[in-house]
């Protein structure tokens, strides 16, 4: 079972890295990080903050773009190009296929995020004169955010076209950065029913701001170990939930 998932994952990884678009994304991310140093010359006294903030922003932005761009086509492309027939005629169940695809894209994102992080951390190290250990937590949490976005993209990819999947995933991404507002709204919402509905909505949608510690690390504030572990746990649980729903939908689907 694990062998099959690993086979699908490494195949998905291979497919992604042989695609030139990925290289292009990474180069753009490098360029944007490098450009942040130029931009920092325009500010007096906060050069380091600009480099730290924009660099982390670029890492999150390009990571998200890759997760959405590849994630939305992962399942659809296999169905559209009919490559899935030969795969699912093997002793591979549909959940193994989806989990394999997910792990493959997460492996790709780990490598890509890792590369961007090395470039980013080196840049900040060069600017600050010391290795920015505190930024590692921010990079890790960004990766966890990507794990949720990837799971959401695969969920939509398992039953709709890439175009619609892209729209839905971007919508979830945007809403996901605003759901923290719902948490505070629960307390002031009138009536128990409304409170229940709002809290249900809050739990159904991802709270992506959990993974955004940029403003904290930029200003040198520490991110606690417990916070990081909680966020990782949340990311894993939410992704698993999305993949479970994706499997339920995908299992029922006729592959015509």
């Amino acid at each position, binding site marked *: 079972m694990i062998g099959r998932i690993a086979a699908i994952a490494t*195949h998905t990884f291979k497919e992604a890295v042989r695609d030139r678009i990925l290289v292009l994304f990474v180069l753009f991310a490098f360029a944007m990080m490098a450009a942040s140093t130029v931009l920092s010359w325009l500010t007096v006294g906060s050069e380091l903050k600009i480099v730290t903030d924009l660099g982390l922003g670029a890492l999150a932005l390009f990571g998200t773009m890759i997760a959405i761009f590849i994630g939305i086509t992962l399942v659809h492309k296999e169905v559209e190009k009919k*490559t899935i027939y030969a795969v699912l*005629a093997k*002793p*591979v169940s549909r959940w*193994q296929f989806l989990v394999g695809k997910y792990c493959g894209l997460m492996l790709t994102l780990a490598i890509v995020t890792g590369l961007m992080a090395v470039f980013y951390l080196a840049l900040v190290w060069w600017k600050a004169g010391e290795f920015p250990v505190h930024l590692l937590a921010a990079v890790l949490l960004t990766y966890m955010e990507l794990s949720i976005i990837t799971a959401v993209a695969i969920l939509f990819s398992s039953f709709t076209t890439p175009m619609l999947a892209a729209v839905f995933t971007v919508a979830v991404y945007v809403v996901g950065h605003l759901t923290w507002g719902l948490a505070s709204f629960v307390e002031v919402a009138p009536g128990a029913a409304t409170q229940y509905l709002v809290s249900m909505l809050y739990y159904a949608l991802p709270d992506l701001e959990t993974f955004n510690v940029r403003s904290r690390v930029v200003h040198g504030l520490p991110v606690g170990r417990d916070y990081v572990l909680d966020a990782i746990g949340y990311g894993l649980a939410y992704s698993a939930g999305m993949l479970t729903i994706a499997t339920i939908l995908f299992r029922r689907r006729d592959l015509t």
Partner: protein
Amino acid sequence: MSVVRFEHVAKSLPYGFWLRRKQVLLDVSLTVERGEVYGFLGPNGSGKTTSLKCLLGLLRPDAGTVEIFGRPGNDPDARRKLGYLPEHPYFYPHLTGRELVDYFGRLFDLPSDVRRRRTDELIELVGMADKAAQPIKQYSKGMMQRIGMAQALINDPDLVILDEPMSGLDPIGRREVKDIILDLKARGTTVLFSSHILADAEALCDRVGLLFEGKIVRESGVDELLEGRVQYWDATCDDLQAEQVPGYRCRATQGDRLYFRITDADDLDRWIDIVRQAGGRVVQVSPHRHTLEDFFIGTIRGDRRLADGTGSEGPA
């Protein structure tokens, strides 16, 4: 226990903008027994691929049951000893032929040394040894079909399902695929293949099922279908004139050679007697049997004369 069993399988598929459903399979029932080569025949659009997809769990039948080795088709474990070549195989363009076969071997959890050995053997078997390192995007249709055949056999299957295995192949390729099927048969592997090329089916199959408009309209052994179905005999004799063979219409003459067409076995006996008694020499008597194609066309047209082989053309 049958290797493959369809029992009253029905399936409709959505089409068009409003996703209206079209009944593709009405009632498909058939069994494939261990070790036999079964030809799943039918014109384009009759539901062959849909049936095979139901069998492999790619489609969920609306009604009826499908089983492979006595297990439901959508049970992944049922597919452990199964090889499948899709119709017009599409494979990952970024992989090389060897990588593709190896990848599918991994999906069967084959250990790497077994995978490597099998991959080499199969690539050799399908005649792709010198092309296996090329990316699949550079493959022609025929090469794709060959590498598809190799991946279908990677797990040394007990049941091989081939959806139109000859399509897109040149005569050499077709010969090679036929040889592979015959070789599988000799090793006791069960083969289920769909085709609309009847000559191939006639040469390879033990039994055939004829699918038309979503229903199995005939199912029987190939020999049984064709046995004794002599449509007519072409009979030729020398050293006689047409008038010396009364009661038979001579179709053509060439010098003192006469050509006849006789549709009844008793008439043929009588013709031979007459020729001999008149001092002539029987040069040739060749029977023309019904081909699977006649049977096929006859059945789908509802033409009993062709379907049953009971056509007659009496003596003149």
